[in-house]
């Protein structure tokens, strides 16, 4: 360390700490800093690398870490049946390799327990734990007798059907504003499926050979009557029905074909695809008006294979003509 010091009488004029004393103090601080660095570095590095200093053997032993994170936080940790002071999220450091029992407990919640393996120099993460409450927070939403329901979180609405009374109810997601909004056709055969239109003004339900469309909003421009419209499919079995994004057309998948039909009285459908006999599976992407469906096809080896097709219904919908509709096998 340097010893360039201010000399002469000036050194004595600085008060209690002379210039020379300042330099001595500085030199002392410097060496103290070096000593702290040299002494502290092995411990910092060993801690960082997961080593533990054994005071009995005076040796470093490589250890591991258990990191615990829960939902909710603040959970009590039992480590090998011993309660720790820390609550989650927490880490248990300097663990020798091996298996450790962890139990997590929170009042009024189901406890969680597991044996956690610790490897040297590694972190065992227990960070996807959810503690579920003992008594779930239940809330009844319907205020009348109902048969089935369907929730629309984006529209913040729930629709209920009462098949016995043939009524449609609606409420918000908390069951508030519960009210009956439409009637279903009486004596409708067994309901296979139902769906509210994207504009929430209509609802269809379908059975094996009939589709009924009920109007939920009387202000809708296409509201023809208070009673539901019935669309019949006497010679075909309806497999699936979807709302088109315009909330006016229905995409109907039967056991023989796929057609589009307007939701109005006396409407006649436009057949888009004729299907081969066999089981059909379908998916309709309402945001893109895209229909995905399967159809069995006979290949060159004379065996039948199920193929997946995609059909866009949106842009050319109004150009469909019956004569355009062809079967995939044609």
């Amino acid at each position, binding site marked *: 360390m340097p010893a360039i010091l201010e000399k002469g009488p000036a050194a004595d004029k600085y008060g209690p700490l002379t210039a020379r004393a300042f330099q001595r103090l500085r030199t002392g601080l410097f060496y103290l800093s070096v000593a702290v660095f040299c002494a502290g*570095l092995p411990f910092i590095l060993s801690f*960082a*690398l997961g080593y533990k200093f054994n005071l009995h053997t005076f040796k470093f032993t490589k250890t591991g870490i258990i990191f615990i994170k829960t939902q909710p936080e603040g959970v009590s940790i039992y480590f090998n049946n011993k309660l720790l002071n820390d609550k989650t999220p927490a880490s248990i450091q300097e663990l020798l390799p091996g298996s450790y029992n962890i139990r997590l407990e929170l009042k009024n919640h189901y406890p969680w327990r597991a044996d956690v393996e610790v490897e040297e120099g*590694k972190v065992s993460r227990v960070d996807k734990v959810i503690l579920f409450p003992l008594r779930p927070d239940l809330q009844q939403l319907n205020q009348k007798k109902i048969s089935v329901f369907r929730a629309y979180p984006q529209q913040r609405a729930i629709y209920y059907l009462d098949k016995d009374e043939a009524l449609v109810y609606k409420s918000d997601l908390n069951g508030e504003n519960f009210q009956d909004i439409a009637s279903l056709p009486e004596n409708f055969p067994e309901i296979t499926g139902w769906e509210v239109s994207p504009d929430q003004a209509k609802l269809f339900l379908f059975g094996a050979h009939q589709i009924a469309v009920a109007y939920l909003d009387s202000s809708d421009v296409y509201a023809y009557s208070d009673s539901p419209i019935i669309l019949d499919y006497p010679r075909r079995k309806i497999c699936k029905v979807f709302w088109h994004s315009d909330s006016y057309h229905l995409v109907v998948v039967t056991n023989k074909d796929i057609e589009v039909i307007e939701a109005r009285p006396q409407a006649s459908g436009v057949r888009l695809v004729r299907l081969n006999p066999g089981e059909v599976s379908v998916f309709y992407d309402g945001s893109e008006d895209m229909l995905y469906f399967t159809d069995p096809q006979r290949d060159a080896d004379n065996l039948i294979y199920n193929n997946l097709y995609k059909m866009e219904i949106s842009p050319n919908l109004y150009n469909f003509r019956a004569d355009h509709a062809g079967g995939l096998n044609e």
Partner: protein
Amino acid sequence: MNRKFILKRFLEIIPGGISWGLIITLVFLAIFKPVACAVFIIIFDFYWIIRTVYLTLLLALAHHRLSRQKNKDWLRLCQDKIFSRRWDRLYQLVIFPVYNEGPEVLRPSLKALAASHYPKDKIIVVLTFEQRNPGAKENALKLESEFAGAFFTQMSTFHPDGLPNEARTKGANATWGAKFAREFLDNRGIHYEDVIISCFDADTCVEKEYFGCLSYNFLVSDKPHQSSYQPMPVYNNNIWQAPGFARIVEISGSFCQMIESMRLEKFVTFSSHSMSFKTLVDIDYWPVNMISDDSVIYWKAFLFYNGDYRVVPLYITVSMDVAYARNIFKTMGVQYRQKRRWAWGVENFPFVVSGFLSRKHIPWFIKIRRSFHLLESHVTWAVWAVILVLIGPLPLFFGGAFFNQMAIGYNLPKITGMLVNFTLFTSLVWIVLSRSILPPRPKTVSWFKNIVMLIEWFSVPFVILILGSTPAIDAQTRLLLGRYMEFNPTQKGIKCYNVKNGDFPENVK
């Protein structure tokens, strides 16, 4: 190419090569060997914590000395009978090298001189203007008439452009002014050893007791002619008006200088400083083709006296302007260029090392130690913020799942967090000390600015990266590539008259 040129280029490449080598090596380590990189970062973090605490303690000690010596009647001490005969002969020669600063910048500086607590018939002022500046003569006449009779003499001289072997640097202008003053001293029969020369930036305002303090330290020094005298630079002239980050940078700069004043073995002249005129003549004045004239003058003297030369810290402030412009982006640019110019002090390294190689009388121990200090300070300046702010998180980013499930991957952010907490603690000390060196708040500035000035310290990580490391890397890269910088004076002139000295006489005639 001769050997001298090859040696010079080799030495120029070393600082930038080490800085870039460190940064690139650490980035590669973070990608391919994240554990090794993390180990290095943890060692560096710990080193930085210790260093920060140590330097903060030195700052507190320097601040203690500064506050103890504030308002001391140095002149009375000089008049002590021990020194009185020598003091009677002393003259203060003050040179202001003027680039293109106008009277609005120089006037407060001259007023501060005129208001200083020192016999005015012992103060010689030389304003050395650049001849190429079209308004120079008019400004000189204006200032001469305003300050006529305020000093023993006030002279103006005009440094011609394009003298042989000269670059457009402040050192060339100051040298011209010093040679001009030498003629004056010769004509008056004043001995060089009785003259202390102070080379001040145009915006430098001295405290009232500056020349008393300087004279006293000169008189009590064992080797007054083998010493430079360095006051503590503060940027108080317009600090209340400057943008937050510029203020932080300048306060940090002042603090760094105060810390350096406690490390005498590393202490080098910076910005405005003073020395014996005899020594200046002996070592052939300031360099006329180097930008960092303020530090090179120290190294010239150090080499001339074979290592027996020192810088004596003066615990008294000289106040300058915070460099800023009309909007925040331009201020950022001004600050960046100023810091790059300071960082260009890295050009001292090849100058000093090649000087050491040709001097046999300087002990090898001193040569190695001083060269190492110089190199280490510039490399640290360039890389420390990059390592802490940018490279620190890289092992976590590139290490992937394997690294993150290792103990070191888990502990790295915890230890880095500890560093941040320590930095916050030391920042608190810096904040408290910074308040004590601030001038009183002008009445035109809102009280709310006090709060703003506290909050702006949170911008330190951003500021140190943008205006700390980056200009230093820029300067070192230019030197490495041989793309030498030209002198680029800092834009100043937005000045708030009176600050610390406050009571400049309205009419000094």
